């Protein structure tokens, strides 16, 4: 996919001066950045830099002490995760957070939860509108299953799947929400080269076909430099660089953070 065809739009998410601490530990201090529509933004940094905390702040799992987040024009200080979900922010987790007791299909179907309107009394009858709704949402999920090439495992309990496939199912569950902003926390961690290539392809296709904005955390620099439009670097809870992959690669502070400096 060539970068020239891509239309990167206006600022969708604006993060301003976020500070987050747990007791005495300062996880993030004064981080500001923005995410533009349809772009792929990579967040990188050494271990403990605050990358996952940043994602948790964006979708409301953590509540920052200072700073504000503006998403689609509305500013908020605090928000519950389910409200973020309602506004179209989906995410995957670094340690797989699938629902272990359920099948692949059911896991992906849970992603449709916000799209379902019938209450539990209708569902207890499983008849008429409730059944129609189940089938309509099943069709959407089947499209995602086709897209991710996991047809063969749709009825397998996810606990039995290998790691790479579990990551793929988790992506499927996030996609089922039809998000505008997709947060991926190390989608390729622990994968072999082939699985990584598959995952890169899915991420690029999601971005390309559905126009989904993606913010991802990744440690594999080859992947990051290849697929992202922009890279933001965190170190010790501070932003140290932000720019195109080439700019970031040449940035002295980034090199120091990764390789260390001699004093």
């Amino acid at each position, binding site marked *: 996919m060539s970068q020239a065809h891509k239309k990167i739009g206006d600022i969708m998410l604006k993060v301003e001066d976020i500070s987050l601490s747990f007791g005495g530990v300062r996880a993030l201090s004064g981080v500001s950045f923005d995410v533009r529509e349809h772009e792929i933004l990579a967040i990188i940094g050494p271990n403990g830099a605050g990358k996952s905390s940043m994602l948790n702040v964006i*979708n409301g*799992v953590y509540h920052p002490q200072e700073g504000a987040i503006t998403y689609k024009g509305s500013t908020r200080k605090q928000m*519950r*995760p*389910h409200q*973020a*979900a*309602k506004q179209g922010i*989906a*995410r995957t*987790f670094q340690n797989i*957070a*699938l*629902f*272990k*007791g*359920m099948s692949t299909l*059911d896991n992906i*179907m*849970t*992603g*449709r*939860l*916000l799209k*379902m309107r*019938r209450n*539990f009394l209708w*569902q*207890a*009858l*499983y008849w008429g509108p*409730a*059944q129609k*709704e*189940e*089938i309509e949402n*099943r*069709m959407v999920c*089947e499209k995602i299953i086709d897209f991710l090439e996991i047809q063969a495992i749709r009825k397998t309990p996810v606990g039995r799947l290998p790691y790479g496939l579990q990551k793929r199912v988790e992506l499927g*569950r996030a996609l089922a*929400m039809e998000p505008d902003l997709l947060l991926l926390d190390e989608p390729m961690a622990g994968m072999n080269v082939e699985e990584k290539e598959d995952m890169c392809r899915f991420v690029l296709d999601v971005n390309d076909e559905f126009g989904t904005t993606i913010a991802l955390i990744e440690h594999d620099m080859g992947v990051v430099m290849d697929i992202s439009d922009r890279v933001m670097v965190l170190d010790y809870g501070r932003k140290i660089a932000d720019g195109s992959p080439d700019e970031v690669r040449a940035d002295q502070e980034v090199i120091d953070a990764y390789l260390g400096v001699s004093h």
Partner: protein
Amino acid sequence: MFYREAGQFKASYAADQSIFPIAQDRFGVLVILAVAFVFVPLVANEYWLRSILTPFLIFSLAALGLNILTGYAGQLSLGTAGFMAVGAFAAYNLQIRIPEIPFILDFVLAGLIAAAVGILFGLPSLRIKGFYLAVATLAAQFFLEWLFTRVGWFTNYSSSGVITAPPMVMFGFEFSGAQSRYLLTLSIVAVLALAAKNMVRSEIGRAWMAVRDMDVAAEVIGIRLLHTKLLAFAVSSFYCGIAGALWAYVYLGTVEPQAFDIFRSFEILFMIIIGGLGSILGSFLGAAFIVLLPIVLNNVSSIFAGGTLSAHTLSHLELVIFGSLIIFFLIVEPAGLARLWQIAKEKFRLWPFPY
């Protein structure tokens, strides 16, 4: 060999999502229902209907209720018998105070009242989980038992603290015989079991299981945790409340609050652990195990050793065997009898080939 879905192709999602997708299952369930509704009432004697099958069905219903809460939504509860007591005493009070309401509607209202009480005692579940929540629900158990023992209003100021269920009359027909009571219980249990199965295979069931398996991820997907947990408490308590009302009206007739003590709660918890957490079938298997096995043991032992051993030794021996069987089944399959049945089905598909 005969249990195989080969050749049964699904051409629509509706067919694929039907409640029993495999033809043999559909047939099997119809046979079981036919036997339960037609054959059993014709051949079973009064003792079997009144003292074995009816309590088995009522226990299944209570286990179903607890399984929704603990097995599906993952909220451990020790207040089951307390919620059953709410159902029993609510149905009684509704009927003696507003006699115009038909008793079947009383049962539904009693279930709703139990659901409201369940929501109230489910509120701590937002903050506490696991064993700690179990202790919080223990408070419900002790408080409710105390309430019905101490506050005279609930027992209509009966001096002994015992309530006697009024006769159940609908359209001029009184449910007094063992047969009609068995059929009444069976109908209620069948309808509620179907509703439970439908709920757990729909969106609400998936939300419950999501909360059970990984609550952070569930919230990120857009599930409101408190709402979902409280709904599980409400539905569960509704089932338990109706089971309690049936226990009082259909099985015992006269009830004291001590019929719903902590041991009853444990009994039902054991049923779902042995039957299988997160399984509708498991609720029935667990109830059958706990209710029927002692009776089977009793009959078997009196056949084989009736003459040689004293009655005391025999009854102790039964307890020993019952206990060992529980341990045996839990070691063989910790996920319960329902899982054993599932494994058996998978083996049947391939039989006579090993794989």
